């Protein structure tokens, strides 16, 4: 096990392994692509390119696993621990929450909340600035879309009906 881990402590090998798994999954799903009736003798069907690509992906990823080449000047595994993973997770959660809240809360409220959350998450502690910037950006963007470009974005929460 230790040998496997040591072997994979190379960024290219790690990435190649991930993409090898992706290519295998892609090839597995490609088996489900149906053929049109009467396409039996056809050289080219909807599955031709996907099958070729999955084979190419598996071959290239395997080659990279065996011969990863020289390392670029990227981050080492020790350095990876120093990165702000918590902030990244927070941002991802915030983006998912934004997608979820856009319709029920309306554009203005959900955007202002998303922006305020983002500013706060990244260390901005001047709350007045956070509130003013978040609400003015969402309001200005909404005005630009609705009035100038005639793109309708539901501004208010779903339960509030404003004509």
């Amino acid at each position, binding site marked *: 096990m230790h040998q496997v881990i040591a072997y994979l402590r190379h960024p290219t090998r790690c990435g190649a392994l991930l993409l090898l798994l992706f290519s295998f999954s892609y090839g597995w799903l490609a088996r489900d692509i149906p053929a049109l009736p009467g396409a039996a003798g056809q050289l*080219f*069907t909807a599955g031709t390119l996907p099958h070729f690509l999955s084979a190419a992906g598996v071959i290239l990823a395997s080659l990279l696993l065996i011969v990863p*080449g020289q390392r670029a000047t990227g981050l080492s595994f020790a350095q990876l621990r120093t990165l702000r993973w918590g902030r990244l997770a927070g941002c*991802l959660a915030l983006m998912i929450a934004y*997608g979820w809240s856009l*319709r029920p809360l309306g554009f203005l409220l959900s955007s202002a909340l*998303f*922006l305020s959350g983002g500013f706060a998450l*990244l260390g901005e502690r001047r709350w007045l600035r956070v509130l003013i910037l978040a609400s003015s950006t969402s309001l200005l963007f909404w005005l630009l879309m609705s009035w100038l470009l005639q793109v309708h974005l539901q501004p208010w929460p779903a339960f509030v009906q404003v004509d």
Partner: protein
Amino acid sequence: MLDGIQIGLATALSLQNILLLFGGCLAGTFIGMLPGLGPMTAIALMIPIAGTLEPASGIIMMAAVYYGAIFGGSTSSILINAPGVASTVPTAFDGFPLAQQGKAAKALKIAALASFSGGIIGALLLLTSAPSLARLSLAFQSSVYFALMLLGLICVAAFAGGGMLKALLMTVVGLMLSTVGADQTQGIPRFTLGQIDLIDGISFLLLVMATFALAEALLSILRTPRNTEAETDSTFDQQLGDMQLAKGEARLMAMPVARSSLLGFIIGLLPGAGATIASFLAYGTEQRLANATQRKSFGHGSVRGLAAPEAANNAAATGSFVPLLTLGLPGSGTTAIMLGALIAYGIQPGPMLYVSEPAVFWSVIVSMWLGNAFLLLLNLPLIPYIARILAVPKPLLLPLILFFSLIGVYLVSFNTFDIYMMVGFALAAVILRLLEFPMAPMILGFILGGLIEENLARALLIYDNSWSFLWERPLTANILSIALLVLLLPGITRGVMRLRQAASER
């Protein structure tokens, strides 16, 4: 031809049309600058306004918006590494490192000058050689397009840097992603995982925003140093730098701009190929032509590396008007929208446009010169203000980038599923970028995937289900041989160098 230019000038130089040119350039620059809103969106957004104008005025305004948005896209590529459109991806390769070195203003000036030159040279070529060039591209069959696209993909993988195998693998991943959704030739759903939202496939805008703008912002968040909590105050002001070009720099970019403009224009003529391949190929070509010292600076703020794709994508944008104006065939998504607008005016572009609507035909050509000149006049003085976007502190700028990226994609589909998909792609891109895998080959693979499949299917149909089209047509065979050579060249070069080294050691 001179009569035509006179008609074009008379139409384009009316006060109303000059104001429209000015307003179009300004609106295009700002819309194009917002991550997620590229030229296509900008022109689409302008159609309701253009509909209220005379056909010539409407087309002039849309052309100005087009050029403005292309430049705006380059601006966001340079300043925040967020290319709104694929054709400005290579701009970020050297433009963003220049901005990081505190030379943002200079990078924007180089981009503006190269864009201007590319546009002007492109318009001149359009005027002088449109009919014959259109005839040439007409002779190309599906097999040639297939070979050309393959060559483009291999060139990008070969020149991506950081290892050809890695770049090829990422190209294949991009091609794989392009097969998601209903198959273009037969309509069979593929890889939709039972999700109705995936039937139309993955949107280009979504993928590019997720893997570039979102991933860039997330990487920036990830790499924030832990011991600098007082990071709310900006230090970016000093990084704008001087706009002046050094003596040698103007000379250094002259030939690459001329070459790339010509290359961009020719590639822009090919339907589907357009500005993206042009800018990638121009970047790759200049990298190959550069001497060993200059080549090292590519990807780290090279003037040549920034000027070449900028000139090529603007010249290609001009070139894509040739099939539109002379054949009625859109060469790109943007010209497809313009075709729609022309048809809405009751004008059918094609060989007859020249005869039936000379004012429209010539004013489009003249407006390309004027649009590019206005863009330069407008953008050079505005560059210090545009570059001020860097002065916004990171804790405020990064959430704004996330917001504009997410909402830019949401505004196209009004589907929150796209936001979740973006988050997934952005996370994958962050992981792959940390593992030193390049994103640009994946994006090109994704863009060309559908076209490659379509042309391959058509070529096989024409050749009665036989692969013989690969060697029977000399042009196809030649292009494929070049592609093979590009693919094998790094290995051959390495082998020859090892042999030489071994010989010298002996």
